[in-house]
């Protein structure tokens, strides 16, 4: 009995610690990985001629936070920049056909 | 250099309507240039319209007036063919003057 009740509790603890980790322990390595991913997505958006101004400004905010040693904020901003860049790539891809819906014919 | 002042004055026999456009940067002193440095204030302080040696319109301007300002007003007592004189002085001491015939 004691075994079965203990397991979910342990699992919950593990999950909680995973979810909470980035909030208080972003390292320079975390930031670098997040920034590299964001930069790659951003470059793809530029190549598609669909870059957003907010991707650019969020990327530079990440860099600025990292320069001042705030890796929590830097990592969060880099992740946001990556999400923005990915959204712009999605826009570029879906608009390849979707633009026709707006056309006057 | 052409004059910085464009004027048109028309009379309907009783009232003379004057319109003027003045070329001037009218920098407020609060705007930054591309390098992020403040552009120093540079604006017209006094604009004057004279008819027969008498002031008919005097404006004391400040930095809040827009670039290349436009003015329109009317006054009584002038005849077609008469001349009006327009002049401005800015905060750096520069000035310009021109005259226009009322048509």
């Amino acid at each position, binding site marked *: 009995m004691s075994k079965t009740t203990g397991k979910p509790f342990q699992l919950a603890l593990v999950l909680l610690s995973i979810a909470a980790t980035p909030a208080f322990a972003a390292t320079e390595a975390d930031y670098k990985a997040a920034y590299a991913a964001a930069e790659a997505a951003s470059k793809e958006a530029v190549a598609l001629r*669909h870059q*957003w101004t907010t991707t650019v400004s969020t990327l530079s905010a990440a860099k600025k936070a990292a320069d001042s040693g705030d890796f929590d904020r830097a990592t969060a901003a880099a992740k946001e920049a990556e999400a923005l860049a990915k959204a712009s790539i999605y826009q*570029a891809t879906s608009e390849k056909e979707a633009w026709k819906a*707006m056309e006057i014919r | 250099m*052409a004059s910085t002042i464009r004027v048109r004055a028309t009379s309907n026999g009783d009232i003379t309507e004057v319109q003027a456009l003045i070329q001037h940067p009218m920098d407020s002193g609060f705007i930054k240039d591309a390098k992020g440095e403040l552009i120093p204030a540079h604006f017209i302080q006094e604009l004057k319209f004279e008819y027969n040696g008498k002031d008919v319109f005097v404006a004391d301007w400040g930095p809040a007036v827009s*670039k290349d300002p436009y003015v329109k007003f009317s006054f009584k007592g002038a005849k077609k063919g008469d001349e009006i004189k327009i002049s401005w002085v800015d905060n750096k001491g520069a000035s310009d003057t021109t005259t226009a015939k009322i048509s």
Partner: protein
Amino acid sequence: MKPRLAILLGSVAAVLTALVAASPRVVAADKVDPAADAKAFQNFFFQKFPKLKPEEFVNGPYSMDEGLKRQWQEKEEFPPYEFALDAGKEMFATPFKNGKTYADCFANGGIGIRQNYPYFDTREGKVITLELAVNRCREANGEAPYSYVKDEMASLTAYMAFTSRGKPFDIKIPDDPRALEAFENGKRYFYTRRGQMNFSCASCHVQSPGERIRAEILAPALGILNAMPIYRSEWSGMGTTSRRFVTCNSQTRAVPLEPQSDEYRDVEYFLSYVSNGLPISGPGARP
């Protein structure tokens, strides 16, 4: 069972009719037919604004709002682009260091030709805008090129547009697959959503002309380039078509392209072509 079958059959029939109805449009969309596109484009605006005469569309927001129109008519007695126009006239007449002038570079001495730009150069396989032609003229005569967005370029083209006022846009698409491709690319650019705001050019200038965006009234896409270059009060100065494209892009939070990039040239080609027949009204004044 029976009612279900009926519904099923009914929906199959509906799908079939939808397919039949849709198929000619699909075929039409894949074939590039600029003349048909221009006709449809103009008809859309004529039907949306039945009270306007075709030539009134070139006045942009002033054709959409009575109060704004009255203010503008008064302003036109003393237009804000007058200084730029005078400067442009002087620049146009001033010879280069080698003694030649702009008149040597253009048909008809550069007077009254705005309505023919942009044109498709079949030798180069690209769209040539007036601004591009001006800078090529300068470079061919050993002069440094001007900025494509404002100042000298806007003044010079303001004068060239002024000498062309009233002449109908006469953009030609030569029988060249690259010209059709440029037109098609321009059309795609015009309708493609971009930027974080997810706006296309058409979101404002096809779907919402006459509506307000903050304090401004949106201009219709039809005839929008006929007024270029423009003095914008917001800029406190003159700007070219490139400047307008750049600011439109950044307002939708899209990183603007380089002025005179292929995309901008193509969209200018498309937009000018679909306004064929409407008179040049540039230089314009806009809020």
